[in-house]
């Protein structure tokens, strides 16, 4: 591929402002780096912010330089920096303007004025009707569009858009906000310009480079979302885990103290013991029956789909609602479980002439039973989902294998043991890993079964690491220590997954 002769290109009018803009970005980030205004975090948090600032300044510097040199790389890097700048500054500015707090109010108002969406729906219906029978009626479609538009305008008016404008404009033009609004808009404009056809032509972007940039644009929302809502908080919690932080004052760097304390924290170690025992018991009790259930459901009996749906229902039901129902079932005095035990025992006694005393387990309040109750709930919720996965795995097995086994005289059990189980290994691996991870992250079920103030259960019997980190962070205001618990749990989950992954990999099927 020949290199385009850029000397013959006369710079368009927007080129000089773009170079100036990118130069200003570098200067601004450099100043931020030197002065560190607003970087209130000290210690690890402050260092992380400093490093991020320096990296971004370097990226912006490279973008400015290559833009000045009229290289495609300048277009690419410039687009990336402008996009990040627009999203970051725009987001922070919206926060300053009260956008995110205001969303709650907008949601509440929308709920109150829900009927105002009726005209919009009517308009959409008219538009759809205009296309019926494969015949297009532009006039009718236009009417539908107009009705929708009018309905949207009416909805916005009903939600108080007119009343909001003066306040918002007043805030935007305040000296503390206006520069940031301008920066966000300029960055957005520069990013738009960087993506334009004129820019592609000027920077002599070839087909491959154009596809590269398009790819970046497509993944940008996901990447930004990942960075902002996942990687950012994750790294923040890692930084915080090296500090003592109540959430109300700036954190104090304490190095590895939190992690050292964890090793001698008897309550944390108890939570680890609880969850490991829970995993060892609950996961096999979920996976084993799920395989058998899948084998039963993997038939062509009439109505079998209904059964499949019924078993799957618990996994799609809301965990909070389901747990509250189980809490009632587990109630020792008026719960259905103990009532059933009582009735069944009474029936047996009356039929067999025995005098068996009906056991009445204290499902939630006994230290010996409380975790079993959590286990019952976990198994009940997961078994349907695991069954569906196994069912899918079974239906992917080549039927000719079973036919060959039939010819060889294998019975049903032999076919299941010699064909189904071995060929389900990839599915089993996935199911076991996801169940282990879910079990290790156990929080909702014990938290709801017990009261929030006694979420650890009788004698800490239902205390899990996640409940412990919640207690530390939100009940005792020790967010740094709570973050350390979270990262210790992460290491545990990662370690178990890695070991299991390698062990399964050695058996070969993961490479298949």
């Amino acid at each position, binding site marked *: 591929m020949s290199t385009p002769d850029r000397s013959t290109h006369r710079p368009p009018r927007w080129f000089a402002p773009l170079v100036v803009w990118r130069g200003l970005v570098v200067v601004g980030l450099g100043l931020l780096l030197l002065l560190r205004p607003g970087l209130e975090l000290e210690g690890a948090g402050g260092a992380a912010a400093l490093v991020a600032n320096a990296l971004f300044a370097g990226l912006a510097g490279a973008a400015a330089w290559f833009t000045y040199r009229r290289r495609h790389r300048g277009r690419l890097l410039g687009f990336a920096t402008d996009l990040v700048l627009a999203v970051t500054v725009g987001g922070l500015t919206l926060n300053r303007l009260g956008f995110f707090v205001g969303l709650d109010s907008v949601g509440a108002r929308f709920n109150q004025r829900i009927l105002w969406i009726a005209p919009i729906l009517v308009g959409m219906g008219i538009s759809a009707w205009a296309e019926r029978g494969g015949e297009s009626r532009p006039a009718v479609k236009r009417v539908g569009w107009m009705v929708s538009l009018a309905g949207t305008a009416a909805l916005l008016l009903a939600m108080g858009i007119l009343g909001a404008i003066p306040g*918002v404009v007043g805030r935007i033009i305040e000296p503390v906000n206006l520069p940031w609004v301008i920066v966000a808009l300029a960055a957005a404009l520069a990013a738009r310009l960087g993506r334009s056809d004129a820019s592609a032509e000027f920077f002599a972007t070839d087909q491959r480079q154009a596809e590269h940039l398009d790819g970046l644009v497509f993944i940008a929302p996901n990447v930004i979302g990942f960075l902002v809502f996942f990687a950012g908080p994750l790294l923040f919690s890692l930084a915080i885990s090296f500090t003592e932080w109540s959430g*109300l004052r700036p954190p104090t760097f304490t190095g590895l103290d939190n992690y050292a304390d964890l090793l001698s924290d008897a309550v944390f170690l108890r939570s680890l013991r609880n969850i490991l025992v829970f995993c060892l018991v609950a996961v096999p009790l979920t996976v084993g029956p799920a395989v058998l259930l899948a084998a039963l459901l993997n038939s062509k009996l009439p109505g079998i789909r209904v059964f499949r749906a019924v078993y799957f229902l618990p996994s799609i039901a809301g965990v909070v609602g389901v747990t509250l129902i189980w809490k009632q079932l587990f109630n*020792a005095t008026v719960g259905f479980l103990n009532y059933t035990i009582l009735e069944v025992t009474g029936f047996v006694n009356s039929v067999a002439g025995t005098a068996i005393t009906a056991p009445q387990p204290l499902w939630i309040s006994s230290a010996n039973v409380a975790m079993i109750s959590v286990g019952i709930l976990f198994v009940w919720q997961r078994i349907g989902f695991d069954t569906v996965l196994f069912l899918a795995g079974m239906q992917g097995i080549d039927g000719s294998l079973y036919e060959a086994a039939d010819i060889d005289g294998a019975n049903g059990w032999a076919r299941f043991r010699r064909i189904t189980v071995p060929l389900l290994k990839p599915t089993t691996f996935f199911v076991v890993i996801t169940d282990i991870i879910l079990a290790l992250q156990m929080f909702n079920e014990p938290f709801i079964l017990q009261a929030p103030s006694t979420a650890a259960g009788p004698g800490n019997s239902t205390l899990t690491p996640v409940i412990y980190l919640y207690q530390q962070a*939100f009940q005792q205001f020790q967010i740094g220590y709570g973050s350390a618990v979270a990262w210790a749990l992460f290491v545990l989950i990662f370690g178990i997954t890695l070991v299991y992954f390698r062990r399964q990999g050695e058996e070969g099927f993961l490479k298949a």
Partner: protein
Amino acid sequence: MTKRWTLLLVALAMTLAACGSTTETTEPAAATTTEATTATTTASTEPMEDVTLRWMTRPDNPEEAAVYGSISDGLGLEGITLEYEPGDNEGSSYQDKLLTALSAGTAPDVFWIPGTDVARFVQEGAILDLREYAAATGHSDADFYPGPMGHLTTDPATGQPGDKLWGLPRDVSTFGIYVNLDLVAEAGVDNPLELEAAGEWTWDKFKEVSEGIAAIGGEVKGYGQSNWWGPNGAWINAAGGNFFTADRTGCGLDTPEVAAGLTFVSDLYAGGSTVPFGEDPETPFRAGTVGMFQNGRWATPGIRTVEFNWDVVGLPEGPAGPGNWLFWGAYVVNANTEHPAEAWELVAALTSTDVQAQVSALGANIPSRVSQDALDAFLGFTPPSNNQAFLNGLANNPTTEGPLWAGSWPEFDSVQGPAVQAVITGERTIEDFTANICTEAAGAFGS
């Protein structure tokens, strides 16, 4: 292209609406309270500007949340637009959201916190000292119960009441025993209300009634209480014990009085006449299978839905008399509010007699003001017929719920809770508890 511009326009409009919802002003509704109106005219010495204040409280149920919403609409504070944010209840982790909002700098101007949290919020610099604003309005600390005000005026430097003012109590509550009168009649035991009237409502009689009701058999139990520091501590209080030393700087759980209280309740549960310890007692009580149920005034709205005859009696007298708690929580002002004077005005209005009467009408709370008007209004909100039982709890020298100014209440609670539970369920001897609990809890006091 047209669709794209339309979508952009709608998105822009929604953004404006969202940003505007924190700035726009609406015509305040007419004032509904005389005291609120008084506060409006006298609260601030600064010129009034049109400001928006956000405030949040923790209701105990949706009905209470609705009442607070209507109060917010009706306060009519001049120059102040109120935005009420119904905080979730305790079960929905009100505290988590508040802490997260404070960390993010988005917490409301005025918010409610439990009494046990005041010290932490003060020591972390999260709430404002309101004394200078209160001084300008003729506020008097004596208008409220002295127990909560002691904590709300504490100087963190000394740990003793001083000239600070960290907020005003939203309401107060005490424990009572909700009684299923139908079960009492069916069991043929003495009526607890009559025993109380005769001055015979003692621990022994209480146990006798509980066992008598449980003797009905089947699912019926005599008594139930929830498992947290309040109900457990009520027995300790009635025995003359206390969680803490007199100056609240150390653990007080190793005394003979505490041992006596825990021994009584442990024996009570061992007798089998009760809902098993740790099990939810409210559900079976409302189902009509439990004779007596200890809880605060906040349980009243739920109990009002039952279909049997019921009333409330005070806690039975222990060796040291009728022990009880004075529960409370306070409206405080965010240290980062831009409008401290207006925020104080809101706090004063929210704790006015009339506003407290509106909340009390629901039945969930007792006014935090000591005025006879407030108490008279409370007594009128029936059922239960015997509202006086809660007021007696206030009058009989209750132990005030409070924070630890020289220690960590949550840490103390995380140690004492499982330990007390172990004693009550018989998993730990009282001798072992008495010998070791204060060593186990020493960390909560920084040692």
